[in-house]
Structure formats: structure tokens, C-alpha cells
């Protein structure tokens, strides 16, 4: 982890990435994680508590509203946040099912829907493995499509 943070900081300095405007980017080197023995995406987790508004490594913008993210994480600690990119999520009324579907999972601590950015933020207990296929299915049965997943650790 220290090695990783060092590399991150080095990149930040080299890229001059610290700006006045908070900008969140993925900490994931790649989205195509390795499948682990349980068939789950082996996404790498990175501590994000102190870096929630800083630029991260692979240059891909997460496009999460910083204020919204900070509000969402305000009362959260020691958890993993799945930032899910969703298509077809144009209506509040139609997106309600997403919240209801995820809240059936007891390991889900909180959920937020960002209609403007097309993102769903799901806070999971740290011990819970995050499976993109499972998330995709939950989004699909509500009528939308999950196209991408980032996992942030706080």
C-alpha cells in the first residue's frame, strides 16, 4: 500500500494534478480485474479517505460530483464504495428500484443515485466482496445497464 501511495503521490506531482477544483479519478489501474477463485472481479482497493478529492493514477475521470461524494461519505467509515456507471438512468421515479434492490442486501450501508452523472454509489461493508456481475444484474433488473465499476476504499 505504501508503495502504491508513493507512486500515486509521484504521479500527482509529475502531472501537476493538484488543482483548486476537487476532481476525483479512479484509483483503479485497470477495470479489467482478475477473476478470483470465487468468480468475483478482483478489483484493487485503495485507501481513499484522505484522497477523496485528489487525482488518482490511471487518468480516467470518475466524474463523481465531489460535493455529492463528500456528503455521501460523511457518516461512513471503513467501507468500500462501488461507483457504478449506469446508462438509461434518466428518471428519478424509475431509478427508485435501484435503491430498493440494493438495500435488500444487508451488507449495503448506503446508496446514492446521481442522475446528472449517471452514477450509482453503493457503500458496502469492508468484508463484502464486490462482484460487478451481481451489480450489473441488479441494475439490469431495474431497467438500466451498468457499464463500469470503480471501487473506492475509505
Amino acid at each position: 500500500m505504501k508503495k502504491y501511495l508513493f507512486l500515486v503521490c509521484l504521479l500527482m506531482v509529475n502531472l501537476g494534478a493538484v488543482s483548486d477544483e476537487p476532481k476525483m479519478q479512479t484509483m483503479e489501474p485497470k477495470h479489467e480485474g482478475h477473476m478470483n477463485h470465487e468468480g468475483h472481479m478482483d478489483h484493487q482497493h485503495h485507501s481513499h479517505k484522505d484522497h477523496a478529492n485528489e487525482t488518482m493514477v490511471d487518468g480516467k475521470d470518475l466524474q463523481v460530483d465531489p460535493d455529492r461524494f463528500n456528503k455521501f461519505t460523511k457518516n461512513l467509515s471503513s467501507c468500500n464504495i462501488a461507483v457504478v456507471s449506469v446508462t438509461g438512468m434518466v428518471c428519478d421515479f424509475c431509478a427508485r428500484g435501484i435503491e430498493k434492490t440494493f438495500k435488500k442486501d444487508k451488507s449495503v450501508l448506503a446508496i446514492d443515485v446521481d442522475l446528472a452523472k449517471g452514477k450509482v454509489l453503493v457503500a458496502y461493508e469492508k468484508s463484502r466482496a464486490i462482484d460487478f456481475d451481481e451489480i450489473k444484474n441488479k441494475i439490469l433488473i431495474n431497467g438500466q445497464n451498468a457499464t463500469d465499476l470503480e471501487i473506492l476504499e475509505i
Partner: protein
Amino acid sequence: MGIKYLVPFIVGLLSSIIDARPVSYPGGITVMGFSDNMKDSIYVHYSPTHYYSLGLETKKDKYSDSDYSYLRFTYLLDRKNTQHSQRNFYFQSGVSPDKANNHFIGFHGDWETRRLYAGFSYKNAKISSQSYSDRFIQIGIAPYLGEYGDIHTWIMMKAKKNTLDNDWSIYPMLKLFKGDFLLEVGYNNKTKLDAHLMYRF
């Protein structure tokens, strides 16, 4: 399917219902109430999967001055999601458990972004020995873009025709929704009040 059915079908595909999501998420139950110059009805449907819903509609038919009910089946034929839009196309049907002669089939569809909406519905129905069709087209715009959890507002125009009534009726509608509750109200001298309430459990 004759040409008279194809025309509204194609028009609908190019434009597009206010039955916002006649199929819900698996396990979802939706209660709707409708009232206009032709009917008052309450419709409850349940979605076993995201592809179809089963429901019961009890209806007071103001034209024939009769009460009857429909067992309804709605199936999602097509859905297209993009980053900023969603398009849906459904098959809908209903048959009266009391009188098999009372039945309908039809289609409806919608296309919407966060700002724009277009929807249509077409039904071909038979009540006792009388056949009729019921159709509408609706377009709308959201004057502001609310966040998740806000009250959302749509200003809409609806044009509808029931062949029993014969003429098109065009009128403005206001649609409001917050959380799981949706209200839609329109009015003109011909149709009088056109109201639609929906709550999703």
C-alpha cells in the same frame, strides 16, 4: 396487423406513455388510479421479472355506464438505454375474468431524457359486442432538472382519441413526482379532468 394498426404503431416508435414503467423491478408492486371522461379505474400490477407484469384493473366505464375488470398482462418488448436516454416499447393486454368478450390488446412506448419526454399508447378493445380503439400521444419537457429525491416536474401536451368519442382531444398536463409517488393532471373542456396517480411499493 392492418395498416390502421401499423400507423399508430410506427408513430409511437418514432415518438413514444405516461404509464411510467408498466413493468417494475422483480417483486415490485405498483398501484395506479386513472380518471378521465371515459373511465375511472384502479390498476394494481406485480412484476415477477423485469420483463413482464401481471395485474388487475377494475374499471368504471363512463361511456357504457358499466363496471368490469381486466386481468392484465404487460410485456417489455424492447428497451434501449444510452447515457442520456431510455426508450421502452411494451405489449399490453387484458381480458375480463367475467366476460371473455371484454378484452383489449395494444402497445405503448416511451422515450425520455432528463429533459424531454415522448410517449404513446394504442389499445384495441372490445366491450361486449362493441369494438373501439383508444390512443394517445404525449410530449413533455422538464422545466428544471431535479436531483434524486427532489420533486420533479414535467409540463406536457397530450393528444388522445377514443373512437367511441371520435374526436382528438388535445390538452396540457402537469406531471409531478417525488420518491415513489407520481401525480399527473390535465384538463380541457372536452376531456374535463384527466388524472393519473401512481405509487410504487
